[in-house]
């Protein structure tokens, strides 16, 4: 067993196999960033549970494993709905498909093209929002990633088709522990609208996905961001998303976690310009021994911004959910309107949820509220369904589905919504809605 827990120790040794395989001839600012990230990683060390931000999540499994780089993966096409599609397998961009209708609205690059041909663009946006100097795993990603996808939606464009980034892991044949470092930079130009779907799948009990996502919304931009994670139920998934919003920009995020054994979704949003707004909707299902940790930090830096968070968790068997939400209102961020809600449905005696809101407010004219509810199914609703002939077990399933559907129904990208609905219905052993959907109703 490796002992690399404490900061300052030879923590980077654990990753030496990765350091050897890094891209060469990167622009100087990238080399500098990687070195700084390596120094930060050594300095920070793995977060211990006495670190307030990691109080409920133990990452010893990451620290004590001898991770190896993942071998090249095969291209597998899992989705066929129309989208601008990027496939990242075992950390490398394998395919980029841009339908002609979207071609003049955006640019998509892999890491090699971006760093060789668009270094100026990269230098302006890349690694500026990720908090690699404070977050161990963002530092680790910055130090080790070897490919990335960079999307730039040009100003004043309405991207009708969603951008779908498919990220999957294929385990190596020897089933050695393997780690991948997906990295996404999405820049949405002034006044543009777009949807980004990020789906994670594959992996095994010996796979670790350590990702960083940077979302830059320029003035008046509008982004719907969907993260759907369905990895192997024993994989480790730590992906940190960082968003930055300029004036009047709007972010609607949906963070859906169905898979993973040890999962940490970080979602940090900086509201930097007046009248920006963000909505974070989270949904997670934890059963077996799944541990799913959602950590959010919303920084209100400018006046008259709104932030709205609703996280819902369904926990059964020995599932463990964590919600930690920080709202930080800087001085001068007057007229801030922030609301945070965390709801969990506990379906077994062994399931557990830890919820910790944290409000830091340094402006006086603000409205900030938070609330958490943990409960079981509603008896009145169960009774109502039963009086219509629906058996108690099916009634329970229907209400569990309904609890999740509250989030899922808001998803605007139809193939994503329908896939999730079918999956949740199947999960609860309920009849699929497919044929009802085909009926034309007003």
């Amino acid at each position, binding site marked *: 067993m490796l002992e690399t827990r404490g900061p300052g120790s030879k923590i980077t040794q654990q990753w030496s196999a990765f350091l050897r395989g890094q891209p060469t001839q990167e622009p100087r600012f990238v080399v500098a960033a990687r070195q700084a990230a390596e120094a930060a990683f050594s300095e920070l060390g793995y977060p211990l549970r006495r670190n307030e931000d990691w109080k409920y999540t133990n990452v010893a499994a990451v620290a004590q494993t001898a991770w190896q780089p993942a071998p090249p993966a095969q291209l597998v096409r899992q989705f066929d709905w129309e989208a601008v599609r990027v496939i990242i397998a075992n950390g490398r961009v394998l395919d980029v498909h841009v339908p002609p209708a979207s071609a003049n609205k955006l640019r998509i690059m892999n890491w090699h093209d971006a760093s060789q041909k668009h270094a100026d663009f990269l230098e302006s946006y890349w690694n500026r929002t990720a908090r690699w100097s404070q977050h161990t795993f963002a530092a680790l990603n910055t130090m080790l990633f070897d490919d990335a996808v960079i999307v730039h939606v040009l100003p004043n464009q309405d991207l009708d088709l969603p951008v779908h980034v498919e990220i999957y892991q294929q385990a190596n044949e020897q089933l050695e522990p393997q780690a991948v470092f997906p990295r996404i930079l999405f820049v949405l130009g002034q006044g543009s609208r777009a949807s980004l779907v990020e789906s994670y799948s594959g992996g095994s009990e010996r796979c670790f996905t350590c990702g960083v996502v940077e979302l830059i919304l320029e003035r008046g931009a509008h982004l719907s961001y969907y993260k759907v994670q369905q990895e192997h139920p024993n994989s480790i998934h730590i992906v940190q998303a960082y968003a930055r919003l300029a004036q009047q920009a709007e972010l609607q995020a949906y963070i859906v976690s169905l898979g993973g054994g040890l999962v940490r979704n970080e979602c940090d949003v900086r509201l930097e310009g007046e009248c920006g707004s963000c909505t974070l909707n989270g949904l997670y299902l934890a059963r077996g021994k799944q541990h799913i940790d959602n950590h959010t930090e919303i920084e209100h830096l400018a006046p008259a911004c709104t932030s709205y968070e609703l996280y819902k968790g369904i926990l059964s068997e020995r599932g463990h959910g964590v919600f930690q939400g920080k709202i930080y209102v800087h001085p001068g961020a007057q007229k801030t309107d922030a609301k945070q809600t965390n709801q969990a449905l506990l379906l077994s005696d062994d399931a557990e949820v830890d919820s910790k809101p944290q409000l830091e407010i340094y402006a006086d004219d603000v409205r900030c509220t938070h609330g958490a509810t943990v409960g079981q199914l509603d008896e009145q609703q169960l009774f109502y369904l039963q009086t219509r002939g629906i058996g108690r077990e099916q009634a329970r399933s*229907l209400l569990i589905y309904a609890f999740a*559907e*509250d989030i899922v129904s808001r998803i605007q990208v139809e193939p994503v919504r329908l896939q999730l609905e079918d999956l949740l219905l199947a999960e609860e052993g309920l009849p699929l809605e497919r044929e009802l959907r085909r009926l034309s109703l007003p």
Partner: protein
Amino acid sequence: MQPMLEIRDLHVQVEGKEILKGVNLVLPVGQVHAIMGPNGSGKSTLAAVLAGREDYEVTQGEILYQGRSLLELDPEERAREGVFLAFQYPVEIPGVTNMYFLRAAVNAIRKHRGLPELDAMDFLQLVREKLRLLRMDESLLKRSVNEGFSGGEKKRNEILQMAILEPKLCIMDETDSGLDIDALRVVADGVNSLRSPERSILVITHYQRLLNYIIPDQVHVLVDGRIVRSGPKELALELEAKGYGWLEQQLATSKL
């Protein structure tokens, strides 16, 4: 002929307090009976016990439905056997569409009756026909069960379910409460269209007004957990004119 429903000496407690204190009632097949009573007389408790609410404790007596004890059955079994309660306060279920809910209910009941499940097209045809009957908009099917429905829409949704599920015994708990006169007419027309020689309906109400539209075969007056008077439909008018105080007073005098 065996009655649809027979209640014998029914005593019910809620949280240790006796609410029904020996109710006796016979509802023959094909008839409509009304139960009237002041607030707190136990009307809604009776409705809830018939539908199978668990937190109501039956301490004495029995309820026979088509000659069979109802108390042994779970709420869903009662529904599948043909008992339907139209709720005074229909429950909202965000996240389940009315369409999905109705089909799940219909198919649960059909399965129990040994009928094949309805496919989407047949189901839609059935629902459309019933929607027209209740002058309801099809868009209600896509919305979550009762969520954001107006008072009138909720009550109509109850009658819609009743029309679709085709129960044998309908219990209508304060179906008129919160309805304006137009909505009341629509609901009453819906209920009247469901009257049949094979179906019995128990209308529970505080006011006589609903009984102008749904004419009962008999009226029972429930006061303080007991049926104190039964009579023809004219009894409802008498109650309307004299108020419940008249009967409560009579009751008190007779006890002396």
